[in-house]
């Protein structure tokens, strides 16, 4: 069962490209992106280790159960609703960015909302499934994607057009002052451990999540590739001119053999799968959070057939995403993504604080517990 956890780590790491993480980092490449990456490797690893250990202290409980059980109702409800917004908007941003990418690079003649609605429909379809189904589907899709991921990474690293000199020059800006935005962006690559918020329900009690070194190793690798490879292809200055930086970078590579010549199409195919996986997971989690706000809700990981509430919640997510697509353009989407990255980073830190407090209070005797809960509530909010 532990292997499912690492699938989340890997695809959340990879989806960073759709959330403007490489773009944000590259914009700040001379002003603090490199030190931010270095910090994020240590901070991200530490955060992942601590959060995983904290979740394992609450066996088979997701985030809503933990909050609902140990916190006063209003506070728990506020936190859960905020988390819902955070998770849902993650899926929303990714779907919008990917639809824009497809519109620019694949179907320029198509009505942009037509393709957005297809992506939204697929995400609703995925998000309504029960937790176990989502987990199984993630494994299968990631297995199907693995050859594409490998092909893309191999092509990128071993391309003779990759200028290692440019990479070395950019890496030299390690002694600049790290910027907070770069740090928040870089931390997203490590964010996969957060999926335990729902999927911890499926981790059996007294499981040990072993092989945690996978997180620093894979995520660091993903981050270095997604930051440095575009710089290697476009040069230290030229790289700053592109918004959809990775699509352009993928289009800089050629496959000599086979039916397809431009690596761009491999990249787009891969990110169709990754985007939908991410959207499915975030919307499913958000729907689970929202449902748990109802006082009589009992979380179930296996539901067949799926309840109608799943459909309603996910359909409204879809409607909101469509509204967002009407409102947003490239610059507004970039702005929203930045806010989202900030919010997500703060939520990660907040989660650690809240969980540690709960754990401290839980360890104390019952009598004291009742007195200290209101205190911690005021200090949190």
């Amino acid at each position, binding site marked *: 069962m532990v292997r499912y956890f690492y699938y989340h780590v890997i695809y959340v790491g990879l989806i960073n490209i759709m959330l403007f993480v490489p773009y944000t980092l590259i914009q700040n490449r001379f002003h603090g992106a490199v030190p931010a990456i270095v910090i994020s490797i240590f901070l991200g690893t530490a955060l992942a280790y601590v959060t995983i250990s904290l979740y394992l202290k609450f066996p088979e409980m997701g985030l809503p159960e933990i909050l609902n059980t140990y916190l006063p109702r209003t506070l728990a409800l506020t936190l859960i609703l905020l988390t819902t917004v955070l998770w849902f908007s993650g899926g929303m941003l990714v779907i919008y960015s990917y639809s824009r990418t497809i519109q620019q690079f694949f179907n320029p003649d198509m009505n942009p909302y*037509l393709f957005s609605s297809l992506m939204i429909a697929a995400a609703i*379809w995925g998000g309504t499934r029960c937790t176990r189904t989502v987990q199984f589907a993630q494994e299968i899709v990631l297995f199907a994607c693995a050859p594409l991921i490998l092909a893309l990474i191999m092509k990128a690293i071993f391309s003779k057009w990759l200028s290692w000199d440019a990479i070395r020059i950019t890496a030299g800006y390690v002694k600049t002052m790290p910027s907070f935005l770069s740090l928040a962006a870089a931390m997203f690559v490590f964010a996969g451990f957060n999926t335990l918020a729902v999927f911890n329900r499926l981790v059996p009690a007294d499981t040990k999540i072993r092989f945690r070194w996978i997180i620093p190793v894979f995520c660091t690798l993903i981050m270095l590739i997604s930051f440095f490879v575009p710089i290697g292809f476009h040069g230290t200055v030229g790289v700053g001119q592109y918004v959809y930086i990775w699509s352009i970078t993928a289009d800089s590579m050629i496959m000599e053999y086979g039916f397809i010549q431009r690596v761009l199409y491999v990249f787009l195919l891969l990110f*169709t799968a990754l985007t*939908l996986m991410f959207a499915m997971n975030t919307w499913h989690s958000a729907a689970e959070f929202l449902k748990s706000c109802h006082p009589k809700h009992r*979380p179930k990981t296996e539901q067949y*057939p799926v309840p109608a509430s799943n459909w309603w919640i996910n359909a409204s997510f879809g409607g909101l995403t469509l509204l967002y697509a009407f409102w947003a353009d490239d610059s507004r989407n970039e702005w929203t993504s930045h806010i989202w990255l900030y919010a997500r980073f703060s939520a990660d830190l907040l989660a650690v604080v809240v969980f540690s407090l709960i754990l401290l209070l839980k360890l104390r005797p019952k009598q004291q517990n009742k007195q200290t809960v209101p205190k911690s509530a005021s200090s949190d909010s």
Partner: protein
Amino acid sequence: MLEQIKQLFDESTDLFTETLDNGYWPMEIAYFPAMCDERIKDGILIPYSYRFDPDEFRRMLHSNPKYERADNPDEWPNLLLKGYALIKLEETCYSFKSDRTLYTQPDETQLESSLQGPQSAFTEDLELNAYLLRKRYNVPTLSVEPYEKGSLSRTAIFVVYDRKLVNPSVLELLRKRLDKVNIELLQSTGQLIKELTDKNHLFFPTLLQSERPDKVAVMLSRGKVAVLINGSRFALLLPVRLFDFMHAMDDDYESFWISRFLIVMRYVAVLLTIVLPAAYIGIVSYNPEIFRIQLAFTIDGSRAGVPYPSFIEVFIMLFMIEALIEASIRLPKSVGSAATTVGGLILGQAAQQAGLVSSIMIIVTSVVAISNYVIPNHTFSQAIRLMKYWFILISMIYGVSGIAVLFFALIVYLCHLRSFGEPYLAFYGGQNDQKPQSAQRKS
């Protein structure tokens, strides 16, 4: 006794009823001659007539397991209809089992043929099927639960499983669903499948039909449940996963690498048969730039004479191939090959030369048809056959990107399916993954 039976079977002239008398005892006898075999002669008539000895006859009545007391008059019609003979001697009724079986040896495999594996298949006789299974799965823990379904046909059903390995929750669910089966004439496994599956399992089979006793034995050893039906030469297996449908018995008998190669090839074939016609539409009409330039030119060149959009071309060719497949099943065997030649070779060639379809489309159609038949299971092959039309529809609207999205949705759908509570598509390690629902705490 006879009066009562005659009343029940009023107009049934094929029922034989008579009071026999050999000088010592009178005996009332009733049976359907059409449903009983020669055993009635050796079992009743000879010992009763010229070899008669009252002591021996009485001893035979008590010791021969084919004789059973039949004191309850309500059971008589049922027994008669199942091929038993009823006799009444000295005010006591006995039934004698003498049902005729037409099958004395196993069938040949017809749908799931294998090159070097066993060639025997199930027959339409339940007893023989149970024998075939017991012979291959020879352990005392093999349990058989008898059922009778169908208000008119009253078909006997055996639910077979290894009680040491079986998942009790699956068995419980099966019993519950069997209780709900409401059907008049149960004549084939397909009907039972429809009754046992959920309403929303519309596209993919979640129960496996197999005619091979060796396959059923392998499945039993994995803790699955088999359902045998009298009068059908297929066993039902549950719960199953998608991989079971893609598994041919030859995979177990070939050497390791050969079978791995075959399995991988089969999955590639399935991918091709689902995606290829849709991809043709997407690439020709939406994104010809995906292919390298030479290839794109070749495809476009071959379409130069075709006057309509690619999806019409696809529909023409797919209609032809589906009609051909359907025709070759219904046609008598002697005409079948002629139809294939005319339909496949001559028509295809002519359609291309007439400029109605491109030559690439002919290749696509052939690949689709051939790949579809690589799938070892017929039901699954039908499901896949239908699936490609969804991809064609989405490709008409969205092109290649639509195919990728729909493929994702298909995977989610397959993961969403459950076969008797077990996941349908998942790489997972046995029953231990079935997590107890202890996460339901107060929230």
